[in-house]
Every structure is written in structure tokens, then in C-alpha cells.
């Protein structure tokens, strides 16, 4: 049996379809997604996952109808305010990946900032919300940062490059869960998912619950991770006896 993955990431897909199946506006799907988010955070926390990353809103999502974007942003703000204290008391450190876009309304930016400030010293679990995030953009930004720092080409290694990514202390993703059966990467944390295991449960995100999460962890445990090699030596600490 394998250990619990250290870093789990979720691509929260299927809100729109969930709403369409019920003849509701797309925004109703986003609204229903909140319960799933809270359930997954609780489940990951209980399971002992150290890092949980959620893909909430991509840079591409700005292209959606303005009304939908507005509702989505308002929902995020409401969720932050509603759950800030619970997250904090659970010892969860909250971070946001991306989120520097000027289109983000100042009150939301303020709340994001406050949530990070409030929880920055927590260590039980780190919740990274990829908000207004684009994996390629992060890589481009890291490249710019390298050039600005005048790092000579021969000194650019995978490790030194990774130190220029946002939140360089974030470990590589071990498991990505993408709901609704879609099997795409969608520009999500491209650098960090390089060796991740992917599972694609068919359930739509608003219906995703703790038991689905446990199933995904189970799938992960049964997989044989190779990291591109033939076999992972147990000495890395990943294996079990």
C-alpha cells in the first residue's frame, strides 16, 4: 500500500453541465460547487494530505460572459468570508496562485489578501487556490524573473528554474483529480504536474463529495508511480514496506 499523496490538486470541472442537466443557469452550478469544495477540503484535511490545490478560475475564464464572471467572483468572495474562520481554526494555510489581474475587484483582492495574512502561520495543511491562474504564464514569469536576475544560461537547471515560480516551496503535485470525465490539462500548474498521477472520475464537480475523494486516493495508492524511470526505489520515502 502507498502513502497518502503529499500534494493533491483538483480541477473542478462540470459546474456548467451540472446546471444544464437541471435546466438551471450556469451560475447555479458554480453556487453548488461550494459544498463540494468544503467537503474536499475537510476530506483532505482528515486524510492527512499536506498540500491541496484547487483550480478555481483560469485566465481563460475571463472570456466567459461578464455576468457569469461577476457571479463567480462574488461567489469566491462570499466563500472566503464565510469559511475564513473555519479554515483558520483547522490550521489550514490558504494561498492563492495568480490573482494579480486588475480585473479582480478591489474588495475581493482585499479579502484574498486578508485570508492569506490570517492563515500564513498555519502548517497543518496548505490550501492553494489557483485563482486567475495560467500554468504557461507562471512559466513565462519565472523565465522573466531568471533573466532579470541575470542568471547565466548554464546555471539554469530544473531546480533553479523552479525557485522562480510562484510559491517555490510548493512540492510537486502527486495526484490530480479532474472531475466530469474530461481528460485535459487545461493549462493547470504545468510545471508542478509533470509527474503527477491523474484520475478522471465521471462525477460532476458539484456532486463530488468526500467519498469520491477517498476513492481517488485509493486509485492513487494502487498505482505504480515510475517518475519516468523503471521503478521508484523505496528509499525515497514514498514506498512502504
Amino acid at each position, binding site marked *: 500500500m502507498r502513502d497518502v499523496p503529499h500534494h493533491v490538486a483538483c480541477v473542478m470541472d462540470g459546474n456548467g453541465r451540472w446546471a444544464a442537466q437541471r435546466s438551471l443557469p450556469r451560475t447555479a452550478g458554480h453556487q453548488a460547487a461550494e459544498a463540494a469544495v468544503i467537503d474536499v477540503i475537510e476530506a483532505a484535511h482528515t486524510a492527512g494530505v499536506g498540500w491541496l490545490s484547487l483550480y478555481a478560475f483560469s485566465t481563460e475564464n475571463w472570456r466567459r460572459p461578464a455576468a457569469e464572471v461577476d457571479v463567480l467572483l462574488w461567489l469566491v468572495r462570499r466563500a472566503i*468570508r464565510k469559511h475564513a*474562520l473555519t479554515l483558520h481554526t483547522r490550521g489550514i494555510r490558504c494561498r492563492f496562485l495568480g490573482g494579480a489581474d486588475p480585473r479582480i475587484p478591489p*474588495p475581493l483582492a482585499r479579502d484574498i489578501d486578508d485570508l492569506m495574512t*490570517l492563515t500564513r502561520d498555519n502548517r497543518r495543511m496548505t490550501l492553494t487556490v489557483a485563482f486567475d491562474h495560467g500554468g504557461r504564464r507562471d512559466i513565462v514569469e519565472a523565465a522573466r524573473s531568471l533573466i532579470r536576475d541575470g542568471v547565466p544560461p548554464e546555471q539554469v537547471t530544473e531546480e533553479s528554474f523552479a525557485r522562480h515560480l510562484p510559491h517555490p516551496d510548493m512540492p510537486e503535485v502527486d495526484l490530480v483529480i479532474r472531475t466530469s470525465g474530461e481528460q485535459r490539462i487545461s493549462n493547470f500548474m504545468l510545471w508542478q504536474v509533470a509527474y503527477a498521477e491523474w484520475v478522471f472520475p465521471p462525477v460532476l464537480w458539484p456532486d463530488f463529495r468526500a467519498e469520491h475523494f477517498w476513492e481517488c486516493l485509493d486509485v492513487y495508492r494502487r498505482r505504480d508511480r515510475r517518475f519516468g524511470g523503471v521503478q521508484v526505489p523505496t528509499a525515497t520515502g514514498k514506498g512502504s514496506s
Partner: protein
Amino acid sequence: MSDAAPTGIDDGTTPADPADPLSPGSMLHRLSHQARWGLVATRAIVLEAAHPQIGAALITNSTFVAHPWRRLRNTVLSAQRMVDPDERVRRREAARLNRLHARITGTDAEGRPFNAADPEARAWVVATLFESTVTMCRLSGESLDGPALDRLYAEFRAFLALMDPDGGRLPPTLREFWRYYELMIEERLENTEAVRVILDRLFAQVPAPPLLRDSPAAWAAGRALAGPVATAITVASLPESLRARLGLPELPGTRTLIHTAYLSTRLATRLLPEAWTRLDTIMGMLDPTYSRREGGDALAGLRRGAAKAGALLRLLTPAPQAGAADDSTLRSAARFFSEVLDQTGDGYLDWPDLAAMAREIATRLDLDARDEDRLFTAFADWWRELRKELDTDGDGRVTGQEYAAAAAAMTSSALIRVAEVLFDVTDVDDDQVIDAGEYRALFRAAFDHDAGGGDERLTRAEFVRRFLNFMAGRLHSDAYDRLFAQS
């Protein structure tokens, strides 16, 4: 318990320097860095306000109701400079205070002239601070013995002598002081408007300190509970003879309340780590920009805690309804009038309002006499021009309506002159640009807020442009809001 004493005001271990009563070993020096000095200052201001001259000066010129935090901060800073180990700093500060007070003159509502630099009034201010310190010690169960009292009194007299080369008007001995004090209460003090404003309005309406400014609802709720308690404590701590003269009733239970309050400050001062009960720490928590100048890391942990507390409070405060225009860059003429121009909060724009702005700038930049004069002259010229153009009913002051009707005409030659003088006095090294250090001295903030990236320098033209934009175009500016609008 012998190790608990060093945080008190008299640890009996540091000998006073007989030649220099205000040396770093002095009781006053220690006291002025303790947070409970805030209690002393608040109580003393009621006693000061009951003096007709001081009361009149406070009510017509002071910004303490509209901007109490700024006022408190300046008072604290000034008191600390007055007991600075370096005697030159003390003399410079005393001279600055004298200039500042000499500018505050006028006549009260009954036509009696007042002058903030009046030696008798100034002696009373120091007397109230001394008596409030003694009272604080007594109420917190830390009674000072005869020699300690004598020493403290000598220190306060030295404090006064710094401002008053003639030695001041405080009696030479403590015995005579108490007679003087009783006599003042019985014959000189009055139930002035300033006393009523402090007791009725200050605690009930005190605006949020900078830390909680974004949580107005939470602040208002806390203030509704704490305001009356603070008033009751202050009233109950006043001398009984004065309470009788002012007709202030003693509410049942306040005796216990007051002892509890003072005792807890004493215990806090004795038992908590010294860094926590330092005035700088408390001020730093209330106003995150305050202690940045210190640059020390000792407070970093506390500030971190305060930042977290502030964040939590903001997150728990109900958010304003969607659609509220809280991010607009333009503000209405009425808001600009009340937030920026009307410094004294009396609803009118008058010379004391502009003088308060000049005073704030002069205090922040610690200007010498020459620069201070230039600044006040520029502001006075601006005031004359404003009055000529805006005071349509000729009553000598500008109302909110008069201002709103002609606000667009605010960009005047006199205002440009104010901007240029402000640039000159801020540009300490005369290199014709405001660099990061100079910017920080004026705005108490890092450069980036308005600069929008770019170089950390402001040319004269850019500086003047921004100042005029703020004053005339009524554009929001974090930097200028911190300077003029926020308490």
C-alpha cells in the same frame, strides 16, 4: 518579586542625574515610553480643557475630535522627544512646540482673548500631566513615596523649564504645588465647551484607528460598548472638587471600574514583556505605518499578530452590499470637504483648518523655524485667497455649500505656491527631487503607493501636479489621505 519592578516608573535602581532631571534614567523618560501614559494623557486633557484659555484654544484650533489618533501620535512623539537622551533634541522640540503654540491665538465665544503660548496656561498643562501621573500611580496601587514624588515633580518642572526659560510658573516645592492645584480647580477652571465636547463626543465618536479603518461596522460596535466605559473611567478619575464644579455625577460602580482599569494597566506593565506594553508597540498596532520608522524586528511578531487580527476582523465584518461604489477614485465635494479640508470637524473651513494641515506637515518633517514660517505663510496666503473667492456670505469662514458651489476654482496660484513650498521643505537635500527617504518622511509610507512602479523619485513638476490633483481634482490618493484625511 524584585525583578518585577524595572517596568514601573521608579525602579529605584537608576540614579537620577541631579544636573539633568530629564536624563534617560528619569522617571519621566521611562513613563513616556509606557502604554499607560495614554491614560494619563487622556485624563490630563480633560483637566486642560477646563482651563478657559486652553479650552478655547482646543475648541477653535485643535483637531483632536476629528483626528484624535493623529493628535495622540503627535503628542506621544513630542513627549518622547522632550525627554530624549540628547539635549539638543529636547531643546529643538521645545522650540518647535513654542512656535506651534504661539500660532494658536484668538478670542473665545465670550470675546476673551486666548493664547496657547500663555505661560500660565502652559504651566497648567504640565501640572495636569504631573497630577495625572501621580493619580495613575495611586489608582493602580503603586503609591509613590515622598522622595519619589519630589523627584517626579522636579522632572516635570524641568520639562516646563525647557519651554519656558524663565523657569515656568509652577511653584518651587511640591507642598506649594498642591495648594496651587486646588486653587486652580476652585477658582480658575470652568465647565468649558471643550470639556463637554471631550466627555460627550470624543469617546462616543472617536474614529477607527488606522488598523481598523476598513472595518467601520466592527469599530462602531466596539466603540458603542467601550466609549461610555472610557468616559466613566475618565470622569471618575478626576479630582472630586472638579467633578463637583463641572456637575459631573459619579455613577455607581465606577470606583471599582476605575481601580480595575488602572490596576490592570499596572499589572500589564509589570508582568507582560516590556516590549508589549511600550507605547510604541501599541501605537504601532493601531497604526501599521507608525513603527516602520523604527525598523526594529522586536515588534515584528506583534505587528504580525495585529495584522492577522485586523484581517480576521475585516473578514468577519459583513461585506457591504454589492454595487456599493467603494472603489471609485473620485469623491464628492462634500466628502472631500469633511474628510480633508475641515480638519477641526466643526463643519466650516476656517484658518484653523488650514493651520492644522500646516502644523501636521511641520510636525512630520520636524521643520526648523525658517521652513515652518514659509509653510505657514503659504497656507495663510491660500486661506486668504479661498476666503476671497469662496466666502460668498462674508462671515469669515467657508461652509460646505460655499465650497461645493465653487470647488472647481480650487486650482489657484496660492495653492500652487503651497505645493511648491511643500516640495521645498520636503526636499531636504535640495537636489530637486523627492527621493524615497524624503517621501517616507512626509507620507510615512513606502514610495510605491502612488508612484505606479517607475523610479523612486518625484520631480518638482510631478509632485506639484499630484498635490493639485488631490486638492483640486479631488482625486483619491493614499499618500495624501494618510497625511490629511485619516486620523
